[in-house]
């Protein structure tokens, strides 16, 4: 009997409280729908509306987090970081705090403020509350290094998660496919055009070598015929020009080749990689 009365009493109070909370949740759902349909600007408006009318501040964490996500989706990273920081301040649990911090790291990765992203990863790692999350932290550290074009360090970071990690293999392959810029320059000092050939630009390398040989011949020929002025002019305006050009091109082509290799991997990550991205 008493049990029945108690049950009826609690059922009626439950009905009361469900009705009272509806309007805030409805507004939150509305804002979420706008977010899911990629209307980020309008979603921010509705999240802000909810924040204004939510006198108890129960949605504060979620609102700031979602606004941060909206700004991140619009590539407005400074604002995104600001709101994720606010979400972190309003976090009620360690998990919520961790999620906010991770979003700040991911936003810094996209903004290519790599040093800041790595610093935040280090801070997270030192935090005893997240001692079980080292794999995730290393994952984002690896991503930060990838977008900073530091594939070697990125491979090491992914290796800490798993020695057969997909991104570790990708980073190692990318690093291996690159050419040495210093080597290209050095061999061009010795044989003009060889650096370009080393970087895969065969025609340019051969033409460069040809110009150097031709202008070298003209210079030597001029001096041998006692045409000193002509020799100096040809040496300065032609031979030296093409010799310097060969060294410059060796460096540029090596950098360009490395850029192509990096961008191929970055395109794969952008379009085909199925894992979590920043």
């Amino acid at each position, binding site marked *: 009997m008493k049990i029945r009365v108690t049950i009826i009493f609690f059922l009626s109070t439950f009905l*009361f409280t469900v*009705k009272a909370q509806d309007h805030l949740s409805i507004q939150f759902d509305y804002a979420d729908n706008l977010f899911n349909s990629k209307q980020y600007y309008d979603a921010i408006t509705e999240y802000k509306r909810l924040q204004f009318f939510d006198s108890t501040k129960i949605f504060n964490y979620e609102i700031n987090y979602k606004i941060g996500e909206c700004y991140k989706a619009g590539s407005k990273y400074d604002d995104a970081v600001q709101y994720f920081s606010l979400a972190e301040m309003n976090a009620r649990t360690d998990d919520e705090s961790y999620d906010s911090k991770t979003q700040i790291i991911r936003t810094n990765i996209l903004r290519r403020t790599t040093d800041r992203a790595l610093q935040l990863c280090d801070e997270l790692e030192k935090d005893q509350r997240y001692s079980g999350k080292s794999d995730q932290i290393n994952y984002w550290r690896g991503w930060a290094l990838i977008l900073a074009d530091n594939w070697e360090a990125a491979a090491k970071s992914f290796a800490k998660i798993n020695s057969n990690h997909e991104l570790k293999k990708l980073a190692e392959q990318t690093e291996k496919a690159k050419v040495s810029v210093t080597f290209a320059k050095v061999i061009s000092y010795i044989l003009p055009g060889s650096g370009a050939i080393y970087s895969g630009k065969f025609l340019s390398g051969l033409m460069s070598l040809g110009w150097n040989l031709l202008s070298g011949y003209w210079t030597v020929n001029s001096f041998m015929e006692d045409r000193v002025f002509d020799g100096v002019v040809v040496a300065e305006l032609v031979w030296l020009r093409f010799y310097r050009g060969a060294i410059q091109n060796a460096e540029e082509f090596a950098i360009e080749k490395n850029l192509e290799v990096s961008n191929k991997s970055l395109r794969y990550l952008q379009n085909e990689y199925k894992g979590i991205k920043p």
Partner: protein
Amino acid sequence: MILKTKIAYRFLITVLLFIVPLTTHNCQLSANNQNFFSPHNRLQFGNYLYKDKDYLRAADEFKVYLKSVYNDTIVFRLANSYFKIGRYTEAADNFKGLFFGSQLSEEARLLLYESIFFQNDYKSLRENDKGKIYYSSKYANEIERLRFISYFFDNSAPPDENALLKNFPDSVQSQLINFYQQKKYPQHKSPTTAAILSTLIPGAGKIYIGEIGDGITSLIATALTTYLAITNFNADHQFRGWLFSGLAAFFYAGNIYGAAASAQIYNARIQFNFDKEVKLFFEQRNYFLPKVDY
């Protein structure tokens, strides 16, 4: 005992059957009061956004509010929101709506003139002020000052110096006199003079403009190639003689053209620097306009 319990139980159910709908009804009422999209709530939210300088969102809220309730302060805030984000045409249109029958009429007229000014439509500004169109008795001095300021920003002939200066405070008189003199008597260089000087002496035109390095380079290049042409012709090297003659003509003609072009660029740079300096001066003083907001 059992009967008493049964009666109490039935009484409780009856009471609950009445109370739950009532509380639900009250909740529904309070839920309706928490309708975030009601005009009143839209206004509250709009004001919050306005104070937060989120003007575009505030404008959207005010626009919807004004569809159901007319309030001249909100019309002013709507217009001011557009003004703050640089949508001066919309600001002007909304300010015009306050000209008659509103306590904010004078302020709206002032801000209308400001909207026209910041659209860089200085001609309309002057015509309106001269014709006393949308005249404001309270802000007549400010609007007239704005009209005089507009002369610094376009190519119109400035008015009399004294007529212009009397509208501004003493503390800025000397700076304004300086600007006025620069506007009326700019320190331009003549492209024709530069070209003639370069024709007589290669590089002289560039030196006249102040580009000493370019002038000396022109002189050396022209002189050297001419010398080489002469010596090669004297040594009966026809091909080289003509080659260096061609180069000499190339450098000589380029130097004349370049002198005239450089004079034009010099004059344009003077204008550009003047415009930049004047704009900064007036911006730092808010164009001598009062801060108006509601």
